[in-house]
């Protein structure tokens, strides 16, 4: 089986802005994502509280996509949100089976 090298971008941020972040990635051209809820601690303190509206917990959004788009997403999210909201974003190399993740979507 052929493996294609591409990128995974991971965004960990406040659950309260999940919908907005997803919207941005969609607008930039990503067509899939995986998301789960995580706890964590960083510069802006710990996030382990009881949550109803998503203020006290983090989400982790992972998107497999081209290197170009991954960088665009990282930049956009960082610029738009991380002044006011807690969060980190990072890229990793991945090898996928399906070619679709390696051509600009």
């Amino acid at each position, binding site marked *: 089986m052929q493996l294609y090298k591409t990128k995974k971008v991971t965004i960990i941020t406040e659950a*309260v802005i999940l919908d907005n972040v997803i919207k941005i990635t969609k607008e930039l051209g990503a067509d899939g994502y995986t998301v789960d809820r995580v706890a964590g601690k960083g510069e802006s*303190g710990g996030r*382990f509280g*009881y949550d*109803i*509206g*998503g*203020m006290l917990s983090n989400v982790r959004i992972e998107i497999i996509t081209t290197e170009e788009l991954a960088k665009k997403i990282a930049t956009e999210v960082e610029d738009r949100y991380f002044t006011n909201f807690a969060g980190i974003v990072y890229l990793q190399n991945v090898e996928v089976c399906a070619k679709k993740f390696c051509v600009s979507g």
Partner: protein
Amino acid sequence: MEVLLEFFSRFVDQLQKPVLAFLLAGMVVSAFNSKLRIPEAIYQFCVFMLLMRIGLKGGMAIRDGNFLDMLLPAIFCVLIGIGIVLLGSVTLARLPGIKKDDALATTGLFGAVSGSALAVSMLTLESEGIFFEGWVPALYPFMDIPALITAIILANIHLAKQKSGSHVKVDIMPIIKDCLRGTALTVLIIGVVLGLVTKPDSVYESFFNPLFRGFLSILMLVSGMEAYSRLRELKGVAHWYITYAFLGPLIHGLIGFGFGYIAHLLVGLSPGGVIMLAIIASSNSDISGPPTVRAGIPSANPSVYHGTSTGLGTVAVIALYVPFFLALGGIVFGF
């Protein structure tokens, strides 16, 4: 003087009530670093049960009530909600060392309403046998939404001015939608509508009403644990917020009581209804408001407003102002 004595005796009563005790227990448990955690799903379910019960009872009361009787109190709620924020914007927000957006976010939450304080006061009035119109607690959104919107608008105007001096247009509709779509108001509205147009008596009597007291206890336990966590975040925050958390609810409640008294005179709002209105006004949003403010005033520091509201305000209202306004009502209406 008499109020204070009466208040003191009611306060001791309240201390004996498990509701407040569960709140305090939650704080102690957190302070001792216990590993106890009520599962989040259960916490969310408690909130659902409480608001659905408030909503259903409200809806059934509206069905049986006179629409006109409700109109004035509803309008008063809107006025109080906006008024509290405006008051905060010319007091708290102007104090030295206070970031204006932090202050506005905070007053927004104190203008808004706490579902759990509401539940506590319903339970207290009901168990004291003091009648109130069942629809009064359902007025919740009429105070909540205007308060949050006013705060968000003022903060955005302030931020726009800071940046450019130019004027700003804040779009109100998305904020209203955001409030209504939030968990708390959605549940309350479902409850009101179902209470109004269907006959939910059997499910109310077999489920939502009898379990009310129990789920409220658990919610109080969690609120106590949360209050402690938020309190710790308050370290380093200007002391004015502490003053505001204790004085604000008193003043807001008195405003509510005043408006309620007017409604009592004009449209015959019951003494219990007046007390309830005071407590709604006195209470601050601890569940549904914070995320709305987080989205609407992103630059405000959540540790400040969330800490002040959930860490201090809620405890103050349940421990002090529920008994206080009960006592005040007792004096004023003579029971």
